[in-house]
């Protein structure tokens, strides 16, 4: 594993604190890119605008995965969409986190018997946070953001680490469902 981002001032900041600072920084400024797959995208405008305003926690929508470190998968995931979601996920830079909205990514939801939607997002890309509900309301989404920030702080949100560690397994699962572009 290549050493992540070395400590800039080893003499001043002890190694352990540097990791804590990195986690605090990435917690306080989560930049998100959201993949409007299903019916969840409609829940984002209320969370951004004046009633709930997620920007108070430093969460703002960004245009490209290169600039973002939080991917929101909002709704059922068709096989065709999963190929693009994996591509966008791999274009993001570590540390990156994934939140899946609604019951469809958890267990397929109302499309449990459909032939072209996947039933559990976790098998294909590491998901740090699921929000149950057949489209959660903005309150649930805000609660999820706060929980994710606590997870990041305590180091539990390590989806990106798992993706690097089990990369071959994840790719094998993906190859069973769609043809990867780099094959």
């Amino acid at each position, binding site marked *: 594993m290549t050493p992540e981002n070395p400590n800039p001032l080893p003499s001043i900041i002890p190694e352990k604190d540097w*990791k804590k600072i990195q986690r605090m920084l990435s917690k306080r400024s989560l930049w998100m890119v959201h993949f409007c797959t299903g019916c969840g995208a409609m829940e984002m405008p209320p969370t951004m605008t004046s009633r709930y305003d997620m920007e108070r926690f430093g969460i703002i929508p960004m245009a490209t995965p290169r600039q973002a470190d939080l991917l929101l998968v909002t709704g059922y995931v068709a*096989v*065709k969409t999963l*190929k693009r979601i994996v591509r966008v996920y791999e274009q993001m830079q570590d540390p990156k986190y994934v939140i899946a909205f609604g019951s469809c990514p958890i267990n*397929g939801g109302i499309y*449990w*018997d*459909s*032939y*072209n939607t*996947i*039933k*559990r997002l*976790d*098998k294909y890309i*590491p998901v740090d946070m699921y929000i149950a509900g057949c489209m959660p309301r903005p309150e649930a989404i805000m609660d999820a953001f706060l929980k994710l920030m606590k997870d990041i702080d305590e*180091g*539990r949100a*390590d989806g990106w*680490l*798992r993706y690097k*560690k*089990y990369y071959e*397994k*994840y790719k094998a*699962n993906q190859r*069973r*469902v*769609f*043809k990867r572009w780099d094959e």
Partner: protein
Amino acid sequence: MNAVGIFKELGIEYEEMKVKGNKDPRYRAKVDPEKLEDIILKFKNNGFRHFVALSCVDWIKEGNMELIYHLFSYDNLEDVFLSIYLPRDQPKYKSLRHLFPQIETYEREIHEMFGVEFEGNDRLGEFILEDWEDMPPMRKDFDTEKYAKEKYGSVPLVEEGGEKE
């Protein structure tokens, strides 16, 4: 010229469908596949300029596929459903996209979902589903639940609990 007149002129027995809450007249007629093209042309020249949809019904028990051509006329607000029946095992019919351009898209979808062949339409093939090898999924003999359980259920979970930082 309204739909009933055209039907009488062509000598096709038709049936008027009463639909609650819809006062516009709607007619349904079973038509001989060979003569379908001229009939549609006749309707098209007499005010039925709007081709609403081409849909397909899979009658698995009778063993045939029904293609329904749905036309609508703005002049006297009438709907006409012309349907033909094709054998279910190799359903094949000629493409009518030269009458209405949008027929091509419906034909591509029906080809992918029901497996109906349309000669003259060169853009059949992969349309909505990507890398799909199995049989056309909308046919009644395709069991989606078994397919879903078998394809997505069998994917193993990646081991939980990667080591913490």
